[in-house]
């Protein structure tokens, strides 16, 4: 399931650790696998386990422990907004309410068109720049007041319509339709 490009990235991660500690690369390997496939299915995690010489259960444990791994399909763009106290004091509660209304979904839900999944996040270590929204784990958007959120949503919606963003969106659409 993993492309040669992903396998090369995983090998580069393995090389960071002592030769007898391949398991140390599991977090990186899962992130790389998720970047390619959108979410971590059991067969995908099993492939990571084989690559690292780990029991599959040890890989599932890691995947389910850390919040940024997707254990099911998501929309093309996963938006995670921090609502913790420092951010809340600087407009994040308004921003979160605005996003929910604008997308028409609650936290943990995916829009019917499969474009967006909305998540409530915990501290991202960027409180001075609140409100903070993370797009697909990698792109941090700061000072996301409602106007800026509208701009971001419009930009990402257009990208989703062009077929960009995470794969797995069709399955997410199906899931949200049930």
């Amino acid at each position, binding site marked *: 399931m993993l492309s040669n490009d992903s396998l090369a990235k995983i090998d580069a991660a393995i090389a960071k650790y002592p030769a007898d500690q391949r398991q140390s690369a599991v*977090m990186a390997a899962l992130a790389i696998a998720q970047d390619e496939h959108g979410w971590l299915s059991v067969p995908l995690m099993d492939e990571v386990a084989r690559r690292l010489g780990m029991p599959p259960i040890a890989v599932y444990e890691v995947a389910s422990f850390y*919040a*940024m791994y997707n254990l099911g399909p998501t929309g093309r763009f996963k938006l995670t907004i921090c609502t913790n*106290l*420092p951010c809340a004091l600087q407009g994040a509660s308004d921003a979160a309410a605005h996003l929910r209304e604008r997308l028409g979904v609650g936290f943990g839900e995916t829009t019917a068109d499969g474009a967006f999944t909305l998540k409530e996040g915990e501290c991202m270590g960027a409180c*001075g720049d609140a409100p903070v929204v993370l797009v697909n784990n990698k792109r941090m958007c700061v000072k996301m007041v409602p106007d800026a959120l509208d701009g971001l949503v419009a930009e990402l919606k257009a990208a989703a319509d062009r077929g960009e963003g995470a794969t797995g969106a069709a399955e997410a659409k199906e899931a949200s339709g049930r």
Partner: protein
Amino acid sequence: MNAPSEFLDYGPDAVLMAGLTGRNWRLADYVQRGGYDALKRILSERIPPEQVVAEVKKSSLRGRGGAGFPTGLKWSFMPRNFPGEKYVVCNSDEGEPGTFKDRDILRYNPHALIEGMIIGGYAMGCARGYNYIHGEIWDVYERCEEALREAREAGFLGKDILGSGFSFELFNHHGYGAYICGEETALLESIEGKKGQPRFKPPFPASFGLYGKPTTINNTETFASVPWIIRNGGEWFANLGRPNNGGTKIFSVSGDVARPGNYELRLGTPFATLLELAGGVRGGRRLKAVIPGGSSMPVLPADVMMATDMDYDSIAKAGSMLGSGAVIVMDETRCMVKCLLRLSYFYYEESCGQCTPCREGTGWLWRVVDRIEHGKGRPEDLDLLNSVADNIQGRTICALGDAAAMPVRAFIKHFRDEFRHHIDHGRCVVAPYQ
């Protein structure tokens, strides 16, 4: 990478962050600022490792991650002559709500951290280091990868550094969203490719750390302070602050201030000065409460804070802790029950589930504060909260339990009337924030 924020003015006392524009983060810029001079001097003059540790001790540098443990003393715990691998690890898993200083060091001055870690490796006889970077800051991780490439190419990392015979390799490890990995032994488990669940101590990492080998873990800001200490002397650094509170400290100011951001001040500077630097309370409102050291530390009322200086010992005397230097400011319009509710949810959400008092207790704290906030509080609830806090604090493997309990106690202690009003009348004494 986000465009540089307007807060690159870290204040008149800045040392670590002086002269940073947001664009001058590369190795050549750092060298121009005197970077890597400390490392070059240590290696060319063959300064004995013991002397490096002694200089750090003399500086009164205390851990900048939260616990405030003397760094030189921590370094001296490492068994220098232990045969085999030893590790130096940086904790850049910055997730304590209110704290965002390490992110600025990593993206605007990454070579200060790299130089500090190499010096640490030299002083403690380690040949390998890891920098554990918070999961949510991918672009910062990528910049740190680039900075390591630069340092390798320049010969500051790798085998036989600058022809000295000393070899040291350094790698970044990217986290993926778990507050608990800021706890140093959970962080080690995480690097080992496991769930980030803290280890029982003792043994401490200095004897049984990463891969079971002797390991020292320090915070980003702690390591980044080391080059300045070596360059200018421990005494110079100590004199920047106060006795037992050496140096400057980066304070992350968030919440109800006009200019949230990072400000680097000499330890011992009055809180009032910091508040003024951050533009004062937003909208000219009155100050109500401050959490002076990150969300895990006890909240203090305005009058106490306005009479307090910002250093480890002064904040402790005032009844809280300096922690990571995250200053969360709340103005007169804030409902203390609602503020505590969000924090209690955070600890419930982030408990790793290993110890029963924390796993179950954090849920109790959250649910009881939640019912008070939503007008369903019971007369006995404040006693119940204190009792649950009692049964968590000091009864868990790591400090997350304490971190969940301490805010609850302090909010109730200082704002009891407000909690009572919620319970008796089912609503706030102030209009809640939206």
